[in-house]
């Protein structure tokens, strides 16, 4: 962990329940991710990988320890500040896409900016749309898109506000292998071509193989942290 880290945590503990029944989902995790990194967090069910992501993303509150996102200690922030942090600094990609069915693909992509009341950067938006390759589908509603297309819209949505970091929670979990490959490739492009940082929770080894780095959790502790051999440009 260094000061160059865009996201980091130190001695992170997340305990659920009280007394005897208490479970340490995270039992003291210290890890940092640098800007421009494409990292995969892996581990078996119940290993704490999702909890780690939730704590790093400001969705869950740590029981102890510190979390720093883009230079801001977020463990002590109130809901309002956390919301603003998520809005401005963090992008999300969910397993079940979570697009709003009432909005068109374009509106879904622009949603984070709309919420913030900001105008999109047209050049950036055009690059994103070209990257996901859905320019001819922008006016479609999610129900008119395939699963892979929906997830590509979700990827664009996560990137539209140029967040400090994008968290992806099992982004290929609901996709067939072809669509999975496309989405993973797109995340790869986001890091390589667009200079974004992506942290992805997955138990899909193929997904992890695309990443630069794989962090493996078991019983709330990091048991492995390795650089993937794939050459990074």
């Amino acid at each position, binding site marked *: 962990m260094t000061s160059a880290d865009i996201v980091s945590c130190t001695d992170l503990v997340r305990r659920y329940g009280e007394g005897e029944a208490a479970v340490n989902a995270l039992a003291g995790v210290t890890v940092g991710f640098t800007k421009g990194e494409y990292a995969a967090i892996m581990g078996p069910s119940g290993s704490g990988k999702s909890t780690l992501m939730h704590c790093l993303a400001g*969705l869950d509150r740590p029981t102890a320890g510190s979390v720093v996102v883009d230079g801001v200690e977020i463990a002590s922030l109130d809901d309002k500040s956390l*919301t603003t942090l998520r809005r401005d600094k963090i992008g*999300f990609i969910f397993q079940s896409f*979570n697009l709003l069915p*009432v*909005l068109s693909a374009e509106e879904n992509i622009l949603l984070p900016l709309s*919420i913030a009341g900001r105008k999109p950067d047209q050049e950036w938006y055009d690059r994103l749309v070209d990257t996901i390759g859905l320019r001819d589908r922008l006016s479609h509603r999610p129900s008119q898109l395939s699963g892979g297309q929906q997830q590509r819209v979700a990827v664009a*949505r996560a990137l539209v506000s140029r967040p400090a970091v994008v968290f992806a929670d099992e982004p290929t979990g609901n996709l067939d292998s072809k669509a999975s490959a496309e989405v993973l490739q797109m995340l790869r492009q986001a890091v390589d071509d667009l200079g974004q940082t992506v942290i992805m929770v997955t138990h899909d080894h193929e997904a992890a193989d695309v990443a630069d780095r794989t962090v493996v959790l078991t019983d709330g502790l990091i048991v492995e942290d390795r650089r993937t051999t794939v050459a990074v440009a």
Partner: protein
Amino acid sequence: MLKLSLRGFGARKVRLGLTLLAVALGVALISGTYVLTDTINKSFDNIFATAAKGTDVSVTPKDAVVEGNGADTATTIPAAFLSKVQAVPGVSKAVGTVGTSNVALFTSANKRIGGGGAPTQVISATPKPFDVISYTDGRAPTGDNEVALLASTAKDKHIKVGDDVSIVGNGPRQTLKVVGLGKFGGVSNVGGFVAVIVTLPEAQRLAGVKDAYDEILVAGKPGVTPPELRSQVQSIAPSTVNVRTGQQQADENASDIHDALGFLTTALLAFGGIALFVGAFIIFNTFSITVAQRMREFALLRTLGASRRQVMMQVIFEGLVIGVAGSVIGLLLGVVLAKGLRALFKLFGADLPSQGTIIETRTIVVSLLVGTIVTLLSGLAPAYRATKVPPVAALREGAVLPPGRNARFVTPGGIVLTALGAAGIALGLFGGGSVALVGLGALLVFLGIALLSPKLVPPLASFIGAPMPGIVGRLARENATRQAGRTAVTASALMIGVTLVAFVSIFAQGLKATIDDAVDTAAKPGTLIIENTAGGSPLPAQVAPGIKAAVPGVRTVAPISFSTSKVAGVAGKTSVSGIPANISQVFDTQWKQGNDATFASLGATGAVVTKKFADAQHLKVGSKLSVLTPTGKRLSLTVRGIADDNSGLLADLSVSHDLATTAFGKTGDALIFAGVPPAQEQAVKAQLDAKLKQFYPIAEAKTIQQFKDQQATQINGLLVLIYVLLLLAVVISLFGIVNTLVLSIYERTRELGMLRAIGTSRRQVKRMIRYESIITAVIGAVIGVVLGIVFALAVAQALSSDGFKLSIPIVQLVILLVLGALAGVLAAILPARRAARLNVLEALAYE
């Protein structure tokens, strides 16, 4: 899994509570109405029965034609008849009594006692065993210039035994000493009415009657039963009196009250019905939404082998439980509500006695049955839809309930129902049908519009939501139209209340405009209107000549009296007005045939009829009428003129004021017109006020403007009362909005989780829910206002022949729309808070 069911329970708790309330509130108004009116009826029964305890037989005057509820009789009992009664073998004691309400009572400080809604009534003191009054302090008046009062009156005005009060009746003002305080019929306060108990000669003097009685009270010798005594007295009685046992007379007295309350009961029940009808929408919507949400549960049941019938029975059973539980809660709430209603009426000047709480079996049966049946009926369609869930839906995530096979009939059905309803209203209004038909028509129109409104929701939502800014506004608009049917039913519930409020507002405005117009057309400038301060009661006959003599500035005095009659060949009673010869100096008659000189030439044989009456009875000038008067005289009258009157002054049949006095037995005037030079109106009115205050304090003079204002005030008072009663229906429809929002939020949990995760603030989430609520509410308000205007147009058209002037209160209608939006804000408070408090992680994990 546990967390999930707990969350489900959380949503169900609100849903269950609000659905129960939707049933309960409507039922409460029904049970409350019964409890209130039963209690009041019973209280009056007791009061009259207690007052008549010592009276075995009562003799009262009998009019040949009875004018109506509570009106003074035209005939009295000649004093000579009393001695005849006393000579009847079975009679141990008989006394005459005299009463009058044409008096004004003042404290020693010259402050008016009573004079509001409840009457001031002079009662002549009666010896044992006839004591109507039981004294709690002091004694009965024995000498002239002595008086006893009700303890409640004394308490209100801080009067003690030994104090002086003054009274003005027929004759000059005089001072009376309070010698006793008591209860009437065992009750210290009878609806705020002021009883003035004086000796018989004093009462006769105040009433201006000589050698006559209003009632003869008879007690029998030991061993003579009241019915026996009644036959004995009946055998010597002339045809102009009624002879009844004490109990019969008490029942007769109470029956007037029962009749008056019967109207109140019907009116209140109608409001209860409206509230239940609105509640039915809520129940229907809640069941529909829950059936949709529990689709997987039903599908699972089907997969496990449950039949369609079993699934349907499960939903129906839930309806039954909610219906019964809601009805029971409503029944109990009604008991509380009865007290609230009583307080409400007291606020509007009707302080009704009510002792204890009477809950009749009928109240329980009707409340439970109506509430349960309405709930079951509303749940029937959703229950049927639940059976359409295919078992495979259990396995498919996000499966949507197939649109019912009957979905395509919704819009045509709405058109048919609306058309049928409109036809019903038209038939009721123009075809001589009934109010019930109009009500049924309105009901059908409401249902029809509710079925049509899913088509109206999208355009209205985008219009109403247009000013709502940003993505939050956009999402609110989309969410409102996402399930257009659901939004439509929710809005329709509010629509019903708003329609009625809008209609009543427009109608009242029209009524005021109509009265203004009629009065302006009919009354000549410089006309003052003199009426009893207590409202409808007549003024003593000597007031009119008294004014003429006392106030020189008054050029014309034209007293008007009202009576009733039976005209040969005409069904029912025919109203009669006594019109003086000089009426044309103060009042413009709209003659169809005849002229201003006609009234002056009526004499003892002429009559003027209204155009309406003439049309209905095919009368022409020259037609002969055989008229029976209340005093039993049969007159042969000739139609001399036909007049159109929108002011309501002229009754169907108008005779000369003198004839009304001599042949109809009218001793008082309903109102008196005083013509003064318009330029000196204020000055003469001031003189007149001073004289009236001195000699006839029960009368007050109003300028035409004041008269119109007073009419408007009365209409406004009634309007407020109706608003309060309609408020219940509106509140129920707000529950509907809350319910729908809560259920929709529950359905959209994951979307809300995502929105929060990507940076939507709690405040934005709240705003989104609030906007959606406002859109729903304003859709209801807009359709309601439009429908209200349409209904008002129809009624105005039907009444146009009576001179009804439609006047649309634009400002009030705009206010109504704004209130609709505010209602939306109110309804959104709880759901918005729930949505904002959602735990993001749990919401995201939510299936």
